[in-house]
């Protein structure tokens, strides 16, 4: 079974982000909860070549509140 080691980075934010190991890869558009904050996955790329059954991924996140503001057409969202 594959294991996914994922680097989650919040776009435009130096703070936050996470490194998690999971059984399923993150998918663009899905929501993730990290340290009590909700984010939407904006992009997923391979970070480095797999080693054995471990796949190394990077996922760019956007805070859900920013996504919701954008969808509502609120300036600055």
């Amino acid at each position, binding site marked *: 079974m594959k*294991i996914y*080691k994922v*680097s989650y*980075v919040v*776009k*435009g934010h*130096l*703070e*936050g*982000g*996470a*490194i*998690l*190991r999971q059984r399923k890869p993150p998918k663009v558009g899905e929501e993730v909860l*990290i*340290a009590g904050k909700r984010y939407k996955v904006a992009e997923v790329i391979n*970070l*480095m070549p797999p*080693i*054995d059954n*471990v796949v*190394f991924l*990077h996922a*760019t996140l956007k805070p859900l509140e920013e996504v919701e503001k954008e969808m509502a057409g609120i300036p600055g969202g």
Partner: protein
Amino acid sequence: MADRELEDCFLLRGLNDAEVEKLLSIAKERTYSKGDVLVKQGEAASQLFVILQGMVSVKTKYGDKVLDIVELGPGQLVGEMALVENGVHSATVEVVETPTKALVFDVDKFLALCEAEPRMGYWLMRNIASDIAFKIYHNNLKMLL
């Protein structure tokens, strides 16, 4: 420890069953609560942690500034940089989820085992290097994005 937690533990990559048993014989499994501090920035390294369950937050302080570097979940290492350098912890690591479980290794025993069992030591150090490389990738992307 649950088989699944062990199976997913990247630190054990390359080790055979006997070596895994030897390594685990010097580890203690501990459970922590939110707010517990695993390591403090500036303190001498004495323990290496493998997070089995839950989440920890890594923070670094420079002067008055505190930066949340990253949250680390299951399978991630804490204290690996200080172990490799044989020095002091570069950040403070605090538990942010209850319960958080970790395998805890005494650094001196861990290094002694690596020296006594070179094949095992090679894989453990290689796996630690890989963990550090991934964290560097992560931080590089944070700077770019």
